């Protein structure tokens, strides 16, 4: 119950809906039991007792009371559902908000698939319980007890005899539920695997085809397909085993009822109409009993789902704005690192060790080094995606923690290694960080990023849709749109994290030229593998295992005998010979 208590804020505001729905339910259940009673009166009083004057009262009374039931059913069902969907509306908004705020650290360890299943199936199972589950318990209990009451009122011995098989039914139902739910989970898991199998295959189809592995893939798929079928059939066999048995137990009650009830009628201890009423009443007990397991399972699922949702909602936000954070402040972009050490995962090796540098506005910093040497980490500390373990990251002389997150990040243009674009138009993608930008500003940014020409070549230009169903762009094109997106926010600090790796050299050169112009008087960080991309930097940090191995300008580093020179030699070892041989 603790889970529900913690989630109370989402459903309790709508408690009124629940209570009205429950109140309506009282009428629904009560009136359900009226039907067998009407039958009984018709047979015993009207037909056998020859009191025909009762007919109109019975007929119209029945229609009238059923109308009440109809209204009550409507209210019960609609408001019950509304209770669930309103709560889930709030819950979804809260989850989304939370997800927007969680830090990179959280996402480093989170899997999209797992998060998605929480946001979809867990939210749904929680809703299902709020909408039906809770009232189902009430409905089942009420129906069973009212029906039992009427049965005992008609005939105690017959009620006792008829109910004799119910304990067996309860046991069978209980065992069925214990078996069928794990089986269902198996089906779902198997379907999930089938899903992954196909998704991977389709995403990697070029690899499959170039290695001519179609038969192998068809074989693997057939295995998953078979596995799914077997899981499904296993579940079906549980149904086949238990469901007819439950029905048989209910039917046994009917047979016993007919035998013993018939005997009582012959002896004159029971009215024929009462016997007929029993036939209906029996099923009002049998079916709810078989439902009980289902409801209990729904409850435990909702509880488990609620826990998984709480895990997200209660996740600590590593990066939090300070209450007195500076918000109305224009950042100049002077970045300073003082002996910064960063560790991503406790007990792991530090990703950065005692890194210091000073980058006043106008400076271009180049970062180079092998994969995993800490280049990206440096830039992610500036935006405060992570917090340093030791040392200080300052902007304009103030620790980054003292700025409001939005203030800070608005002034930093980030182009990440993998250019992620959203499912929307090229236009919206470029002005993602600055939704108010005018068309002219967008085009200007695109031109600087060397993206305008290829965008205009597309049939719909800037209105071209990207994403799942949109146009496919090449890696280089994506990168150029990402650069335009970063330029458009008019940042004081620009970070290019291997942002032109998929762009051909000539274009890269043009982009750099344009950027140099844009970033005049501002701070630029360039991460690259290619010397050509950062040789103009005012200071180049050469990183090795999180430490600054070398620093200085291109010319200084060139003959330093360190890693930079090594990289340079690999990339341009025979430049001189080439140029000497073929003087331009």
């Amino acid at each position, binding site marked *: 119950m603790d889970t529900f208590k913690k989630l109370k804020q989402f459903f309790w505001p709508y408690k009124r809906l629940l209570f009205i729905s429950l109140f309506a339910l009282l009428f629904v259940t009560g009136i359900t039991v009226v039907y067998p009673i009407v039958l009984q009166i018709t047979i015993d009083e009207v037909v056998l007792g020859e009191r025909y004057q009762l007919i109109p009262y019975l007929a119209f009374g029945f229609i009238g009371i059923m109308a009440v039931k109809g209204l009550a059913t409507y209210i019960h069902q609609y408001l019950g559902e509304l209770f669930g969907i309103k709560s889930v509306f709030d819950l979804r908004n809260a989850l989304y908000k939370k997800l927007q705020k969680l830090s990179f650290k959280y996402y480093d360890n989170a899997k999209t698939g797992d998060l998605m299943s929480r946001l979809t199936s867990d939210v749904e199972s929680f809703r299902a319980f709020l909408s039906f589950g809770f009232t189902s318990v009430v409905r089942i209990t009420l129906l069973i007890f009212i029906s039992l009451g009427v049965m005992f009122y008609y005939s105690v011995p017959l009620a006792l005899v008829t109910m004799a098989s119910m304990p067996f039914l309860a046991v069978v139902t209980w065992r069925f539920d214990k078996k069928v739910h794990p089986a269902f989970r198996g089906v779902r898991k198997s379907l999930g695997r089938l899903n992954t199998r196909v998704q991977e295959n389709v995403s990697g189809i070029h690899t499959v085809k170039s290695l001519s592995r179609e038969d192998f893939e068809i074989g693997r798929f057939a295995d998953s*397909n078979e596995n799914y079928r077997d899981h499904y059939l296993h579940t079906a066999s549980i149904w086949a085993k238990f469901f007819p048995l439950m029905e048989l137990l209910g039917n046994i009650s009917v047979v016993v009822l007919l035998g013993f009830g018939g005997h009582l009628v012959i002896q004159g201890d029971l009215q024929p109409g009462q016997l007929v009423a029993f036939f209906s009443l029996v099923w009002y007990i049998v079916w709810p009993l078989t439902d009980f397991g289902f409801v209990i399972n729904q409850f435990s699922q909702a509880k488990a789902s609620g826990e998984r949702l709480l895990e997200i909602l209660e996740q600590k936000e590593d990066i939090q704005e300070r209450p007195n954070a500076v918000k109305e402040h224009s950042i100049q972009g002077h970045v300073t690192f003082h002996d910064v050490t960063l560790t991503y995962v406790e007990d792991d090796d530090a990703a950065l060790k005692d890194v210091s540098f000073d980058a006043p506005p106008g400076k271009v910093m180049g970062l180079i080094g092998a994969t995993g040497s800490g280049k990206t980490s440096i830039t992610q500390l500036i935006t405060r995606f992570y917090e340093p373990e030791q040392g200080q990251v300052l902007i304009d002389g103030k620790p980054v923690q003292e700025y409001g997150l939005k203030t800070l990040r608005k002034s930093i243009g980030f182009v990440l290694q993998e250019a992620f674009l959203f499912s929307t138009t090229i236009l919206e993608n470029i002005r993602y960080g600055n939704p108010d930008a005018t068309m002219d500003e967008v085009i200007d940014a695109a031109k600087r990023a060397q993206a305008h020409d290829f965008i205009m070549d597309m049939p719909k230009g800037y209105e071209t849709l990207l994403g799942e169903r949109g146009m496919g762009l090449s890696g280089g094109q994506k990168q150029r749109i990402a650069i335009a997106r970063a330029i458009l926010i008019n940042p004081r600090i620009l970070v290019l994290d291997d942002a032109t790796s998929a762009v051909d050299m000539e274009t890269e050169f043009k982009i750099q030229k344009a950027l140099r112009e844009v970033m005049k008087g501002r701070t630029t960080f360039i991460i690259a593998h290619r010397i050509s991309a950062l040789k103009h930097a005012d200071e180049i940090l050469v990183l090795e295992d999180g430490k600054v191995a070398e620093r200085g300008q291109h010319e200084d580093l060139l003959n330093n005998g360190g890693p930079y020179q090594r990289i340079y030699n690999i990339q341009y070892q025979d430049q001189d010979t080439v140029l000497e041989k073929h003087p331009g």
Partner: protein
Amino acid sequence: MSQTSSATESKHLKRFYYTIDTAVDKPFNWKQTIRLLKYMKPYAKTLLPAAVIAMLVSTAVRLIVPIIIGRYTIDKALANQDVNLLIQFVILIGFLYVFNFIANTLRIRWVNKLGQGVIYDLRDGLFSHVQRLSHRFFDSRSAGSILVRILNDVNSLQELFTNGIINLLTDVITLLGIVVIMFVLSPKLALAVMIVIPIMFFISTKLRKNIRRSWQQVRIQQSRLNSHLNESIQGIRITQSFSQEGENTEFFNGVNTDNYERWRIATKKSAMFRPLVEMCNAVGTAILISYGAHLILNDPYVTTGIFVSFAFYLGMFWDPISRLGQSYNQLLMAMSSSERIFEFLDERPNVKEKPDAIEFNDMKGNVEFDRVQFSYDNDRIALHEISLKMKQGQTVALVGHTGSGKSTIANLISRFYDPTQGAVRIDGTDLRDVTLDSLRQNISVVLQDTFIFSGKIKENIRFGRPDATDKEVIEAAKVVGAHDFIQRLADGYETEVEERGNILSVGERQLLSFARALLADPKIIILDEATASIDTETEQKIQKALKRLLDGRTSILIAHRLSTIREADHIIVLENGHIIEQGNHDELMDHQGEYYHLVKAQFQMLGA
């Protein structure tokens, strides 16, 4: 709910677009239905008739019992106070119920076997078919839309083939049975009670249609919501970099509000269904009570027992009618799913294997393009009359801007496409004369973005040759220099990786794909921008590996970076689908043409 009103005013409601391709009902189509039913053919003489017989037995039991209770037990045994007769009837019903139990057990088993058999075949056929389709097919479709067909569309037929068809039969038979029995018992009472049937049908079809449409709207909204959630998680780093959390939250609030609203409407409509139906039932019951009681009094043929039977039958009436409406819905949904499935099944591979295609054995690797012309779609020509030769063991570099035709040449060598005109030959054999498998087994392609399949590292390397031993896998990894980083992973070669996992860096993934290619031991190897994402230190490490990989094979290099190209035996410079220059580095430099300018430009960038 407090944010609803502000959300409608937000200007961020249109910042993302999600086109949803959800199952919308289509009109009934006989041709398609027959094609679907053909999937049941393998079971037409075994499971299908068996399941139908089991179904008939249990339906018969359900139909007979009310007569035995009403017409016989109440009218004969109870009215005449005949205890022996009562016992006989009780035993009879007991036996009938046991039959019913057996028949039900068998029916559930058989029906599921049948349904799953059909679905398995359908899905297997669809997947195998799609797997054989050519690049052209995949070029024009997103992975998502293919996924939806193989999984969701097939799944939506599952219910139809498992319970749908049998339920349809059961319901029709039950309804007809009840009507016939009621008429036999008392035509007058039957007529009177059946007045409500047309109303029930009307509600069941009209209202249900309306309700179905509103739930379709809910599903569409939900797909939008989920698409956005998925994307927002994947793009969270961008969102936070650009501090768009607030704007996105407004967008989400809008989607969430739409979803809520659609859901509310659908619920509201759905909630009307049961009360209306029950009212019909109530009217029927009221007629039964008044007219039935009247008949018992005035009509010697109508007895209390018949009255009781009628009451039972009336209670049994609603379920089949309601389910028929459902079955009809299901059928219409199945129409749209099957239409899409058949659309895929009717796709023919553009690259076809000849019936008499031969195995390509002992490939040497002499590639020849003989006046090859190619266009991806009819209006844009990607290659114009290209003729070229690549000799066995040669390293050939293709140089040119994006869109100049470099990758197209590579794709034609693997026969992912067929030339529009001219011929591509290897060792003098036209590629169209050999089997695709034997051709591609001799060719490895390493792409810029390496695809990692979820599974162990060693399985990923082994993807190049599934029968390779662990030793061979490790050997290949060592040769390309991947062994070191694999060893450093938590579980070494047993480490589980996945497509979008963070465990491997871009460079490491690339090394894996080299190992994969090496293990496949091809005669021809194509490297399409394969080293673009690798840092220089790593690149240097793999240069040696690359040499080993290319050694003795015909290799085609596609690269922007001239440093990779320079050492090629032969360089082909392309522009807009034409070869404008070819030769080795020195020749081309002497020639002072386009290549020379490219090289100059690169060094200028360095010196500028």
